Each structure stands twice: as C-alpha cells, then as structure tokens.
C-alpha cells in the first residue's frame, strides 16, 4: 500500500536518522561496569565515606520514587519527605520497640507508605499543578509536627526520637556493620530500580507518560486516568518510603527534626538535577544532593548555602536537562562516531 508515499515533507525529514539499538555486548559491558562500580567502594572506601555513599544511594532511591509521580506522571509533589519520614518511622518503631529484624520491617513500611500514597493521590486527582504542589508541601510541613505529637509519643519517642542498631552481617560474611549496611542498601535499591525500570518501559509506564503529556488523548486511548494517577502516587510513596526505612537503619536514629520539609525540597532538587523522568538520572540526583553540600562546606565554612546555590545554578545552566540529558548526548555522540 502506498497511500502516503512521496509526501512533500518526505525530503525534509530524510536527514533525521533513527538511533540504532544498543548492541547486546555493549549492554552486558554496561551491566558489568555497573556491578563493578557498586562493589568497588566496599574495598576502597573508609567507613565514613562508605556511610555517605550508602546515604547517597538511599537518596537516589527516594528521588526515584518522586520521579515516578512527578517526572513520569506529571503530578508535582513537594511533599515526598513525608513518605520518607513515615517509612523511616515504621522501621524504627518496629525495630526499637519490638526488636523486629530490618528485613521484616520492609513489607510493613511498604504497605503503610503505599496506603498513605494512595490516600494522598486520591484528593490529588481534583487538584491540578500548583494546587497539588502546595497541598503536598503542607503535608511535608505537617509530618514532623505530627511525629512530635503527645498522643503518639510512646511510639515515636516524641522530640527525642528513637535509636536503633544496624544489623550485623550474617555469620560467615566477613564485613563490618557499615559495609553490610552498604550491601543491604545496594541490594534493596537495586531491586527497586530494576522493578521501576520494568514498570516504566511497560504499557503502564507508557500510560503514565501519556497521561502527563495529554490527558484527553490518554483517556481516548482507554487509559483510566484517575486509576493511573492514584496508583502512581501509591507506588511512588512506596519507593520513597522504602528509602526512608533504609535511612533509619543506616543512621541508627530517627527524630522529627530530621524530616523537615527541607527533605522534600532536597528530593525535588535531586530529581531536577539528575533528570526529570529518568531512572539513571535519579541515581545521579541522589549523589548530587548528598555530596555537593559537603563540597560546598569544604569550599566555604562561612556560607556553604551560597556556594551550594551557585553550584546548583551552574548545573542547571550547563545541564538544563540534568545528568540524564548529558548522558543521552554523550551516548548519541558515541553512536554517531561508531
């Protein structure tokens, strides 16, 4: 059938070649490199540096959660710190009051955060753009105050917070508690990244993006927008909540003042710097929000905030579509040459 051959526009577009698919050996190489990069720090880094890297991976996971709902589904959340806090407290309460093992707290944290995300996602359906941003923001402001509240002080430890202890490496594995915490974090985050990766390239991921790009057309394609949006919120809260659980054990302490609305803003910054709607970008976003403030502090003890701001602006200026955009451009150039 040649109904559309020889359109005048044909010539104009001829120069735009479609990017070729990555060959299998390159993909295997990338996976091996990734594994190497994940394992190497165990042998190279000092205890404190390893702890920082653990925290960076945790932030990356939290940013990934935010990216699902804001990056891929276009619902702006400035309150994801709330889910992070709730995840952290679920784990902390179960471990410190009832001596649960860390692994056993994960499903509980997951269920609680999913339910909470669902609960927030439901009214969010009626709130567009900026209103949703403000509503989620107020959630982030409310959570630390709720955590301090007298009524639940027996559980949450009030202003003092709760202490807990990192799990030791299982017998027979010659790793320190810090090293084991890093391994646990990489495994949990790795599984989450893999699942989200599957989700995003599936029909559901496509529907999330379609809903973001053009809701009316998405509906006409048979997508149930209300259902997709609430579930996106739930999954997003689940992932960020798991990150919160990890942070509680990694730091061995939770307190309301660790979960101010600043956490939500940090996650948002991580998402933008890493790359909105990018899975790999979330990883870079996590590294950025953890290490750049330290770098800023090393440059100027007096005004680290100013330095951080300058670095942030420079990044957004140089990489307007985040690390993810930079990687895409490098990949395109390598392909062009090869």
């Amino acid at each position, binding site marked *: 059938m040649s109904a559309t051959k020889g359109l*005048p*526009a044909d010539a104009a577009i001829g120069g735009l070649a479609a990017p070729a698919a990555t060959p299998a050996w390159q993909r295997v190489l990338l996976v091996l490199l990734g594994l190497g990069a994940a394992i190497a720090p165990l042998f190279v880094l000092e205890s404190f540096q390893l702890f920082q890297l653990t925290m960076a991976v945790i932030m990356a996971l939290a940013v990934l959660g935010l990216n699902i709902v804001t990056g891929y589904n276009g619902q702006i959340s400035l309150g994801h710190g709330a889910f992070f806090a709730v995840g952290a407290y679920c784990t902390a309460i179960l471990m410190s009051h009832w001596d649960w093992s860390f692994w056993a707290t994960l499903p509980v944290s997951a269920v609680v955060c999913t339910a909470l995300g669902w609960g927030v996602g439901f009214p969010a359906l009626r709130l567009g753009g900026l209103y949703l941003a403000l509503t989620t923001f107020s959630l982030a402001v409310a959570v630390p105050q709720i955590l301090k509240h007298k009524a639940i002080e027996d559980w949450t430890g009030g202003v003092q917070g709760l202490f807990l202890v990192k799990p030791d490496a299982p017998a027979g594995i010659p790793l320190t508690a810090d090293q084991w915490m890093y391994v646990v974090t990489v495994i949990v985050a790795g599984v989450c990244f893999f699942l989200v990766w599957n989700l995003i390239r*599936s029909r559901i*991921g496509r529907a999330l993006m379609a809903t973001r790009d*053009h809701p009316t*057309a998405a*509906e*006409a394609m048979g*997508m*149930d927008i209300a259902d997709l949006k609430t579930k996106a919120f739930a999954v997003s809260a689940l992932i960020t909540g798991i990150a919160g659980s990890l942070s509680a054990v990694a730091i061995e302490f939770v307190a309301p003042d660790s979960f101010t609305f600043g956490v939500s803003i940090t996650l948002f910054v991580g998402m933008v710097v890493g790359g909105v709607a990018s899975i790999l970008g979330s990883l870079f976003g996590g590294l950025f929000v953890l290490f750049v403030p330290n770098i800023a502090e090393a440059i100027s003890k007096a005004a680290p905030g100013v330095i951080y701001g300058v670095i942030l602006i420079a990044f957004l200026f140089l990489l307007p579509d985040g690390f993810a955009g930079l990687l895409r451009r490098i990949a395109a150039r390598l392909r062009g040459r090869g």
Partner: protein
Amino acid sequence: MALLEVDDIVIRFGGVTAVAGVSFEVAEHQICGLIGPNGAGKTTTFNCISGIYRPNSGRVLFQGRDITGEPRHRMTGLGIGRTFQNLALFRSMTVRDNVLAGAHASGRSGFIASALNLPLVRREAQEAEARARELLALLNLERVAELPVAALPFGWQKRVEMARALISRPKLLLLDEPAGGLNHGEVDELAELLVDIRRNFDLSILLVEHHMSLVMRVSDKVAVLDFGKKIADGTPDEVRNDPEVIKAYLGAGDEHAQAA
C-alpha cells in the same frame, strides 16, 4: 442492525442548543460523512459519540448496546477509536511509543505484573509491538519511528494519530476534520488512505469534515447538519443536489459550496 445509531440526541450549553434532536446511522463497513457549515453542531455530535459530552436527551447505540454516558476510557475497549481535530499526540514520546500507547486498551497487565515483567506482560508487549510495526509500515512511518513525535511535520503527525487510533482494532473510527491543515496533495493521499483503511481493517468510519470534496469522494453516505438539526441524509449525489443543503451552504457564505 446498524453499527452506530445516534438516536435523537439533544445537547445544550446553557442557553445554546448546539444539537437539537439529531438522528443518523452508520452501517458496518460504511464511510459516513457528517458535514455542515461552521457552528452546525458537528464537533458537539462527535464529542457526544466519543463520550466527552453526555446528551441532555437521546441515546447513542453501538452494536445495539446503549453507550450513552459510558466513561470515556471505555470507548476504545468497546471498539470506538478516534483522532482529534487539533493534534493530540503525546509530545515527549517517540512515534513508536505514541502508536503503542494506542494499544493500551488491548492490554490487561497492571502495575505489579509490569514491575515483575511477568510472561503475560512480555506476551502482550510483543503482540502490541508487532501490530505497531505493521501500522508504522502501512502509514510509511518506519523511518521516523524512533524520533520524538514533536519533531515531525504536521501532516506526518496526523498519520501518527491515525496509526495510534488503528492499533486498537476499532470497529468504528471517528475522525474529526482529518483534512484540516493539509495541502491539496496531502488531502488526496488522505482520501486514498481512508479507502484503503476501510478495505484492510474491516471497520466503519464516521468522517466529520469541513472539506466537502473529500467527504463527497470517499463517503458512501452523508448526513448534513445545520443549526443543530439534520437537514439531509443520503448518498453524496443526493445530498449534493438537495436544495436545503445548497441553501445552508450558500446562506453561510461558505466557499466550499462550489467545491461540492
């Protein structure tokens, strides 16, 4: 039994009666044109069939079943596909992903199955991808499949919309002014394409169009609206010579009257 029966629908916006009791039918395998001067109520009728508006009274029957007020996202699943008057593509996505998005209704797998990439998910994905390849080939979009859809010229984007609507295997395809913004050559291509699609896909087409010559060329049957009422209904030849139709088009000072 007709595939689509529009039964005496009335749609009001505040004081304005946009559609005042319109009835017509689209048979299986038929290309039915819906024409009329600007403001006649074509788009409103179209939106009522596709579930955007609920009629104040009257019914829409599809395959004998009352679908009035059915939620919009059920329409594709029922077998009603559509394109939009102004482009409504998913702009950040590639051409291929846009077409694949059209297959959403033929999939079952949800969040959990997708995250786990279960065999069902892979099977569905392969099926959808195979159909997307066929449609990209049919609409001559293979070469641009991996490009962001926003990078394509207007006429190409319209073909992407067509592919996206066809991938769900609709029994009825609703097209709102598909010729809008196309040049002469492209309108000819479109006419050929519509006839090809009907032959190859076993479907009916409801064609809402301002462009009279296109409608007259491809339609088996034409319904004419004016001021929210149907003023004529018949073969292109019957409609062309209907005095009411000529009056409506001349009265509206429409340049397409001659083109018909």
